[in-house]
């Protein structure tokens, strides 16, 4: 156990120096890519905002079912089958057909090549499930169909969220999927997420629809409130143009009346439709509806064929800017709700770093003094090992560009406290061995060998706890699991290679000394 070949010594030295160098790259700027790695600071240390958004899929499901009723009706119409009494209730579509057609309808829904009801061979499941209740047919999304729907609305939503966050221009945002209906947004350095929160809270569904008094409008009508919440207007459900037709939107100052407005440009389809609607609807009120509320309802005075226009609605410059941004980035497929928010100001982050570093320095000093007083020369060996261990730990964290959090710093300090355990186990064992063994080298060898199972046991138990914490914990706590877990490996390395190397050098030079340890 005590013999080291030259090659091994070289390897240990190189390995340690390498990691010390990597660790020190946090302090200096290297041109070399390999060394230009840094430990990431968690949001709790650098300050920033963590937002967990949940997609409310209910309206999407509702909308999809609504569309399906039309599709089903048209599909069977072509096959000369009449669909009766089709309606939606509690997220089910109900409909009737005459007795003779029942078999055919069922077959269509269960056909694996059906275009009406897509089949997912991988999951052995259709998109829709159909059930014959005797009275009528009952159709809803299958489990897989629902999952597909959720992931697709999540895909769309994350794209829109990304665009909106990018437009605001925060540095290095981190936007990730969580499960199949959540989106995690991390915004480092942002100490007031108010604006982003309000931007993400809006679906930004924009439509242009005529105000009507005709209750029998072919497309149906609905009563909508104005943005100010006071007035109401009856608006046709017929959509002239929607947000999808917008190419661009910008906040502008209307020089005539000194109002802030949002000017927009339409795509070709939109421009055509807008032109037609404004030519036939002169004198009528055109309501601009955003998320179910009327922003304004100006009277159409002229045909607008240019494909551009403007929205006014008593905006301040800020609200106009935000509306333009929302319109540019597009509408969310479904409303988002912020279900968790954690924001740390940058000065608190800095305070946490300082406190963490002071605690680390003091904890480290206390342990080092304690070990030196208790073990003298072997305490010194332990202490050198401890220092190298700390650097290797930081090196590993740097190499993997791990995220350091405040609990993570606590994990490092705790590692310092617990890292001496292995060395102490060995030294205490050596002391015992020396009582019966006169050959010091054999005694040392025995000390290392016999303490091994206890050391392994001790570290495996801690590692198990760290692993569970890593997989179950969230956010900052995960950082604790990382430093604690990595700390176990670096500790074992430094105890079995570095400390043992120093120990072997020391005793081979002092083997005849009376009291070694």
């Amino acid at each position, binding site marked *: 156990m005590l013999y080291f070949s030259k090659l091994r010594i070289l390897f240990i030295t190189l390995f340690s120096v390498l990691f010390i160098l990597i660790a020190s790259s946090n302090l200096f700027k290297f041109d070399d890519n390999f060394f230009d790695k840094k430990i990431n600071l968690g949001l*709790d240390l650098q300050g920033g905002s963590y937002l*967990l958004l949940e997609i409310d899929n209910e309206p999407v499901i509702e909308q999809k079912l609504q569309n399906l009723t039309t599709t089903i009706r048209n599909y069977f119409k072509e096959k000369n089958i009449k669909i009766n009494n089709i309606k939606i209730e509690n997220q089910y579509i109900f409909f009737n057909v005459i007795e003779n057609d029942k078999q055919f309808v069922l077959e269509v829904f269960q056909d694996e090549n059906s275009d009406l009801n897509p089949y997912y061979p991988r999951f052995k499941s259709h998109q829709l499930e159909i059930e014959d209740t005797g009275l009528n047919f009952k159709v809803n999304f299958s489990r897989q169909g629902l999952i597909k729907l959720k992931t697709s609305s999540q895909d769309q939503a994350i794209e829109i969220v990304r665009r909106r966050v990018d437009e605001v221009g925060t540095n290095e945002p981190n936007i990730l999927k969580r499960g199949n209906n959540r989106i995690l947004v991390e915004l480092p350095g942002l100490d007031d997420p*108010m604006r982003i929160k*309000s931007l993400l*809270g809006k679906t930004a569904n924009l439509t242009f629809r005529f105000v009507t008094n005709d209750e029998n409008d072919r497309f149906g009508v609905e009563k909508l409130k104005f943005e100010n919440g006071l007035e109401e207007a009856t608006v046709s459900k017929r959509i002239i143009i929607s947000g999808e037709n917008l190419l661009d939107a910008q906040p502008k100052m209307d020089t005539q009346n000194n109002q802030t407005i949002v000017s927009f440009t339409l795509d070709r389809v939109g421009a055509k439709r807008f032109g037609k609607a404004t030519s036939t609807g002169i004198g009528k009120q055109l309501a601009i509806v955003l998320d179910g509320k009327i922003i304004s309802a100006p009277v159409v005075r002229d045909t607008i064929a240019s494909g551009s226009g403007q929205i006014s609605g008593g905006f301040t410059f800020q609200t106009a800017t935000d509306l333009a941004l929302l319109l540019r980035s597009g509408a969310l497929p479904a409303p988002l*709700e*912020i*279900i*968790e*928010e*954690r*924001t*740390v*100001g940058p*000065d*608190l982050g800095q*305070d946490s770093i300082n*406190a*963490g570093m002071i*605690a*680390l320095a*003091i*904890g480290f000093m*206390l*342990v080092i003094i*304690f*070990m030196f007083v*208790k073990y003298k020369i072997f305490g010194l060996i332990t202490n050198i090992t401890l220092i190298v261990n700390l650097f290797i730990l930081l090196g590993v964290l740097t190499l993997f560009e791990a995220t350091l959090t*405040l*609990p993570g*710093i*606590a994990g490092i*300090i*705790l590692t*310092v*406290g*617990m890292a001496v*355990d292995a060395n*102490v*186990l060995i030294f*205490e064992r050596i002391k015992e061995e020396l009582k019966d063994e006169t050959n010091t080298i054999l005694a040392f060898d025995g000390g290392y060998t016999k303490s091994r*199972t*206890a050391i392994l*046991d*001790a570290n495996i*138990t*801690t*590692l*198990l*706890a*760290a692993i*569970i*914490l890593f997989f*179950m*914990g*969230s956010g*900052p*706590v995960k950082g*604790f699991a990382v430093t*604690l877990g990595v700390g176990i490996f670096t500790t074992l390395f430094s105890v079995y290679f570095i400390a043992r190397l120093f120990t072997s050098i020391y005793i081979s030079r002092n083997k005849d000394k009376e009291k070694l340890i």
Partner: protein
Amino acid sequence: MIAFNKYYNHFNLLSSLLIVVSLLLLIFKGLNFGIDFKGGTLIELRASDSKINVGSLRDRFNQMDLGDVSVKKFGNDTDFLVKFENKDNKKKIIEEIKVNLDKSFGNNYDFRRVENVGPKVSAELLKSGVIAISLSLALMLIYIWVRFEWQFSLGAILALFHDVIVTLGVFSLFSLEINLSIIAAVLTIVGYSMNDTVVIFDRVRENLRKYSDIKIFELTNISINETLSRTIITSATTLLALLAIYFFGGEILKGFSLAMILGVVFGTYSSIYIANTVLVRLKVSQKTVLREDEKK
């Protein structure tokens, strides 16, 4: 040699009492869950005006109809921690509060930290916390079961339960807040307590093989003494590190380090006075170990 075994019965009684009291506390008083597990809003506020104090803040917040509001000093005199349920999960609550505070205090305050946890998320966090602790206990059980004879496993697990229950009991008694970092602390305590027990058990087993004529009552005492200096040094250095975190690591880590300190103290104690007494009560002998050795 210190006669630890002289007090086996006394301390068993004490531990049983501690466990019973802790369980009663946990059942009847319960734990003081923070917003991580209960849902709600937390604001850490720093004031630059002496007019802002716990009283004036409480007045202001109580007028805002936020339900149950708690205002406490946080560390020094200028920092405050405000917590409330945010029952209706109002979206613009933070903005409203800012507007409201501006009216009375102007610009003389600053939100240093804002946390808002919805009811769905807090329920999930609580669930995953319970799963994490149960899973770690189960894994430790499996590990020790593979490594040692069942009598040892029972001793180690009882010690483990003791440490976790009593630590949580102390948190209940003093109404200390349970948040995510406390779960991390409890898991680390589980690891540490196991680690400490295993080191002594390792020695007990080794001694059982070595001496056939020493009774387990004596033998555990010998083993405890042989590993005593390691026990003391390791818990001392760990405690030194934890005390450094407690006193210098800032307010946020206080609860975490306190839980760990308690855990290390209880863990060290239970390795000696619970884990070993189980071996004595189950009359573990050389045969127990040798029988197991033969099987392998």
